[in-house]
């Protein structure tokens, strides 16, 4: 019904930009089938019936870039991160590979369950927090900027090892209070424009806000290569941009608030598949 409504609108609004083929299927390299629509997780009852990957909302051209790793501009950065993975850094003479060997094995499945409660740290952490923990405490190396390029690229390498796996972050147990905090942030209207995440991404996905086709704001495709800034973007960097665009003051990347929000938003994508590094506009 909603789709029919949208199609009608698209036909009526002659000046609308070209919309994506919403029935398109995402198959990467001709053989990796990615689920881009799935029934919403039980905790979303009353909010969403179906969860939809951001890929579905993009133009045909942008969609195509993600369907072949030779066309996906994000893959160059994964190659670069693989070199970093194997390069010794810091006072302890270690590289990532010194402990974690081949990421294809050691990192498989990681991205699908993060952010998660880390018992040794007694807190919920995103992947970048774990990377910096390794760098500082095991390698004796300087931490990377949480939402910086090096981190985005390393996270992309780690993420790639879970591509095609179903997002399954835990929201109960020790993660529950962080998840609740993230949910509260998701529905809070920030900035002088007084916009919450939900205003655009729950209540208006599928609609145009000027020339932008609003998605559900799913993060299963992160790190995402954005055509807009021609680099890989982390989730917290995108959160920062969204809060800024409410004429608001963003929280600190890597801080408790954005980590809680990342857990909550990730949980809204439970059932979709990890796509990163994805291509978005």
């Amino acid at each position, binding site marked *: 019904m909603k789709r029919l409504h949208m199609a009608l609108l698209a036909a009526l609004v002659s000046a609308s930009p070209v919309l994506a083929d919403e029935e398109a299927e995402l198959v990467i390299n001709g053989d990796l089938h990615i689920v881009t629509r799935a029934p919403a997780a039980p905790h979303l009852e009353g909010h969403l019936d179906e969860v939809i990957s951001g890929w579905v909302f993009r133009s045909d051209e942008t969609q195509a870039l993600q369907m072949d790793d030779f066309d996906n501009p994000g893959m160059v950065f994964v190659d670069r991160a693989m070199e970093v993975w194997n390069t010794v850094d810091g006072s302890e003479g270690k590289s990532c590979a010194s402990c974690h060997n081949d990421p294809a094995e050691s990192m498989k499945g990681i991205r699908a369950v993060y952010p998660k409660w880390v018992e040794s740290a007694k807190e919920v952490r995103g992947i970048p927090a774990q990377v910096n923990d390794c760098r500082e405490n095991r390698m004796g190396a300087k931490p990377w900027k949480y939402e910086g390029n090096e981190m985005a690229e390393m996270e992309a390498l780690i993420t790639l090892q879970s591509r095609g796996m179903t997002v399954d972050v835990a929201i109960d147990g020790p993660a529950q209070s962080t998840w609740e905090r993230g949910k509260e942030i998701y529905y809070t209207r*920030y900035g*002088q424009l007084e916009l919450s995440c939900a205003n655009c991404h729950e209540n208006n996905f599928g*609609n145009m806000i*000027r020339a932008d086709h609003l998605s559900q704001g799913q993060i299963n495709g992160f790190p995402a290569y954005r055509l807009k800034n021609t680099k890989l973007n982390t989730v917290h960097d995108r959160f920062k941009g969204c809060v*800024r665009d409410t004429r608001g003051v963003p929280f600190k990347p890597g801080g408790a608030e954005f980590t809680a929000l990342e857990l909550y938003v990730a949980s809204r994508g439970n059932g979709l598949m990890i796509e990163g590094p994805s291509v978005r506009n």
Partner: protein
Amino acid sequence: MRNPLTLAAVLAALCGSAALADGTVAPGDVKYEDGAVAVSLTGTPGDPANGPAVIDRKGGNCIACHQISAVNLPFPGEIGPPLDGAGSRWTEAELRGIVANAKMMFPDSMMPSFYKTEGYIRPGVAYTSKPPEGPLDPLLSAQQIEDVVAFLMTLKD
């Protein structure tokens, strides 16, 4: 030409509240009745010719969410209702109230409040991500609101 001081006094009397020195009603002093605002925010009639500039991106960016056939702007949004015929559906007072603070009439509205300066959560200075050092300006000036309301009143079915 009316004397602005006299006008201020008249406005203050009408609203039962203080007006700014130039006769403008301050954002905190606007009186809403069922979400409508009966009294002009400036006492100066709105100029509908300025409406399209207020509607565009550099103004209130109404076009990001609303379709308005009378202005020739590309990619109108579809978040809010189309504004064609708004002048037939609403009174001037209702339109003034909706533009100034739509949440007075529609508490859950996503529409930003264009004539409000307080009550925000983590407000920043425009799109700088920096917290304000002094009071915020409203998103639109009182006269911009009067102009856009005058323009909307010309959109008849």
